[in-house]
């Protein structure tokens, strides 16, 4: 028995195949691009090929993410909030606060000990501090987005970017470069700004986070600098990240499919 979860985000399209014991058989993460129907077909083919199974073997398909209703063959569509909670419960069971920074929005979720969402908050009005924001900043710093995570190593100043508007922040970065500020200091300043914003999102759902295990999912969780800055800003020793943070939503979707079948 095989269950498929597909997460169609604004930046990436992710799929996970699991068996009836919730073991991950295969997973795939590809850019969503402008033609998301094609991306859905491609990511599905990727996981089927990688697991060596046929489409007819799939017992249930659950879609999630902003494009969840674009998956025609879905058995059900579930929001990314519920799916990320479900996925992280499987990957890091003691998680009570989950931060998911995706391509164009960020979310904070408060989970009960069983992993159910009891409250959540999302970024309002703009996409500041999300994956798209980081892409723009990487461009301004003239580095690859994957290099951004370690760029702040050895930074010592307490610089914080004053603007979180993507356009203004980009020009702030450009003028900092022009004034000779080192790349690592700027990267640290960026991370601090994102962390402050994330922390305020978390505070909306939980005033006191001291005894709650905090985890992070979504592509930005691969950025070590941001994760560390969030931990510092929340006065935590660490923020947990799963091995494959991009597939948490798709995994949760697949698990929901399995549980509904039962």
């Amino acid at each position: 028995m095989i269950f498929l979860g597909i997460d169609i985000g604004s930046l990436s399209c992710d799929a996970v195949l699991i068996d009836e014991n919730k073991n991950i058989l295969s997973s795939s993460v590809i850019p969503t691009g402008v033609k998301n129907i094609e991306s859905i077909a491609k990511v599905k083919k990727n996981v089927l090929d990688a697991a060596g199974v046929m489409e007819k073997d799939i017992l249930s398909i659950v879609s999630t993410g902003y494009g969840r209703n674009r998956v025609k063959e879905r058995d059900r569509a579930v929001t990314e909030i519920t799916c990320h909670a479900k996925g992280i419960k499987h990957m890091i069971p003691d998680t009570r606060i989950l931060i998911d920074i995706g391509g164009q929005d960020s979310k904070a979720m408060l989970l009960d000990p069983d992993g159910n969402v009891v409250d959540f908050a999302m970024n309002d009005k703009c996409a500041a501090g999300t994956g798209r924001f980081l892409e723009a900043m990487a461009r301004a710093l003239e580095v690859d987005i994957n290099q951004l995570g370690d760029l702040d190593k050895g930074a010592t100043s307490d610089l914080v970017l004053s603007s979180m508007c993507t356009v203004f922040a980009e020009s702030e970065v450009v003028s900092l470069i022009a004034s000779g500020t080192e790349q690592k200091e700027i990267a640290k300043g960026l991370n601090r700004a994102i962390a402050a914003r994330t922390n305020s999102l978390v505070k909306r759902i939980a005033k006191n986070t001291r005894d709650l295990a905090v985890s992070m999912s979504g592509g930005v969780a691969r950025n070590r600098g941001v994760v560390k800055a969030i931990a510092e800003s929340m006065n935590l020793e660490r923020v947990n990240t799963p091995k494959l943070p991009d597939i948490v939503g798709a995994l949760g979707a697949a698990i929901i499919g399995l549980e509904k079948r039962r």
Partner: protein
Amino acid sequence: MMYEHFDNTVKGIKDKLSQDPSGINARKKYVLELSRLGRKLYTKNETIAWCGVTAPFDLLSSMGVTSCFVEFVGAMLASTQTAGFFFEDAEDAGFATDSCAYHRAVMGAVLKNAMPEPDFIIGTSSPCTAGLAVMENFANQYKKDFFILNVPQNYSKDAIRFLSNQIEELTHFVSAHTKEPLSKEKLGMALENFNQSSKLLRDIYDLAKTKPSPVDNRLLRDFGVVMTLLMGTREGIDICQAFKDELNQRIKTSRHHASKEKTRLMWIQNRIQYPFPMDKMLDDLGAKIVIDELNTVTWEPMDPDNPFESIAKRMISIPFSMDTSKRIKNMQTLALDYQIDGAINPCHWGCRQGTGARGLVSKGMRDIDIPVLNLEIDCVDSRNLARGQIETRVEAFMEMLS
């Protein structure tokens, strides 16, 4: 443009009424009367007063004045999808893009001379002073006299006297413009009508509490605020009676879609005014708005022999006039009375009541174990709509509640 809109609506409903008088439901009757009022506002030779939301419309109608709150026009422009045109004018004139869009739409309409010219203007400091600034601009533009009613935020003897004196003064202001003295008899009749309508409103709201509730997501939307425009009239009583009868009939015939009431909700403040399928979305998710925050009767029957004090008491008692903690108390009472599972707070952009009180409202509801979804949506300016995010928030909230 707006005259045609109201006129077409009146004609359309009257046509249907003449073909099948029993085929007109309560909501249609309500829309018919509001459209008649709208048409009057855009008709020459009427004495027109543009007002703030909590103005005493019953008193004004007893003095022969056709009156309405300006935000009603903002909502109409949004619902007819013509507001965008006016926002741009207001913004070009320097009106802040993140101010309340009810006011921005009205300001644009004022600048474009698309608002019917009033004879005078009556501002109210409740529910928000932002409205007063718009009214002042409005008065300047048309060179009209401007009267302000300062509504105190606390229910005390002094506060009631303070407002009651202003209301009496208002009658002199109106008389000076209409050249007609106040008729105690007509005012008494208007208050009697308001009392009867209020009694029926209480019955309507009691019926809405039934489990499953006979209301649907549309039936009583923004009802409490808008009905005050009509409650001092015979037509107001008829509309309330029609709603009461319809709810009773729904209960009797089990037309209340019990299966669609997996989740009972409260909607805080005003609804979304432009076409956005929130009602359908909630329907599809099995959720039902059983109570809107402002659908409540918080005042005692008024004494026609003591009209100014009675109106003052009524105005101050409206939760929107009070400080946030009293407003939250009212929400908590409603939440328990209506046995809701959750509440949706649109947190309308630029609104002191909506966005300003967001955290306090969430906390107040959490204190009684009611989760709140903060939408952070602009209820009037659809240019600010992030549709996908709103859908995700609503669906995730329902998933969470279930």
